[in-house]
């Protein structure tokens, strides 16, 4: 049974592309046959996050317009034989493709792949409509900020209006130190406001920047906390019950001191 999953957020810069790359790679690590589609036409980035930017010959629009066969445009990953990328066109715009064409492409890919991961562009316009057209389920990425959660709420409404019921949430870039001193919303705060099921929490982690620098998704890095979070998310997408990560590392002296004085709970 194949599944098309769209990764979306509304707001830009919250980690859609990073999530797409890590989830795609994570599912491939679990042995699934995966293709990732970069639907951000004109502003492609999934190729650089995956470190595959030098291998692009054809792109999504070439496939749609019939300039090449689908197989020719799919780029095989460096590490995993069962992982492919369909890059976006960089010199075209969002109107170069229609939701119907995207839907048809997803149907074709479903015949051969277990998972099709779509990296949605920011915004709620044409690019968003294209990206969600062929999707069976949606994952909404947000960060614990007012602006990002607000946009996530809008996106959830739009997804449900487009028959994508029960989207799942990834809360990205959590800083435990800030949550502890009451300067950042925690998971419970966000889920209370959005009334949506959570599929993963990802700590803010330097390894994300480092892995983006190298073009290697952090999910492959066994020492990375964010990588561990993405491996857990991949397992949950596969339907396995993995408990949410315990982000309470309790490293600081101050926090231990505070704990000592804690009353009640």
């Amino acid at each position, binding site marked *: 049974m194949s599944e098309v999953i769209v990764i979306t957020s509304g707001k830009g810069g919250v980690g859609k592309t990073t999530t797409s790359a890590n989830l795609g790679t994570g599912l491939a690590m679990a042995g699934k046959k995966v293709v990732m589609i970069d639907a951000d036409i004109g502003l492609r980035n999934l190729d650089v996050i995956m470190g595959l930017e030098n291998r692009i010959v054809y792109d999504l629009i070439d496939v749609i317009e019939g300039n090449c066969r689908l197989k020719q445009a799919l780029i095989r990953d460096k590490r995993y034989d069962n992982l492919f990328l369909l890059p976006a066109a960089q010199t075209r715009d969002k109107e170069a493709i229609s939701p119907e064409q995207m839907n048809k492409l997803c149907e074709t890919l479903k015949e051969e792949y277990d998972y099709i991961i779509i990296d949605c562009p920011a915004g709620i316009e044409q690019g968003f409509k294209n990206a969600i057209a062929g999707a069976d389920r949606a994952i909404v990425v947000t960060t614990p900020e007012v602006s990002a*959660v607000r946009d996530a709420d809008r996106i959830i409404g739009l997804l449900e209006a487009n028959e994508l019921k029960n989207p799942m949430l990834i809360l990205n870039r959590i800083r435990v130190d800030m949550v502890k001193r009451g*300067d950042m919303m925690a998971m419970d705060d966000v889920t209370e406001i959005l009334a949506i099921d959570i599929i993963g929490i990802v700590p803010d982690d330097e390894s994300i920047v480092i892995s983006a620098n190298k073009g290697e998704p952090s999910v492959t890095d066994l020492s990375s906390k964010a990588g561990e979070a993405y491996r857990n998310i991949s397992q949950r997408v596969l339907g396995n019950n993995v408990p949410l990560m315990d982000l309470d590392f309790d490293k600081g002296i101050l926090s231990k001191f505070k704990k000592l*004085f804690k*009353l009640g709970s």
Partner: protein
Amino acid sequence: MDLFSFFSRKPSSKDVAKDRLKLVLIHDRVNCSTQVLEMLKTDIIRVISNYMEIDEEELDIQITQTETDGTNGSVPMLYANIPIKSMRKVQM
């Protein structure tokens, strides 16, 4: 509650964020702009003024949220606080 928060009087910035977010979402979800709210206010004043004299200065109309008995948690609510100065004599 721990001993440290007992001494700090200011609400944490997280709580500020949460409150602001809740208010923003109420407006987003009902899709009601400030202009629409102004128009609604004018209309309400016009209708009520047919029956009673009201204190327009002290008038308070806003969209907030309220808890419901249902499963959906809170729903948007139109809140109106309209002080009455005196009743008008209405011709029946």
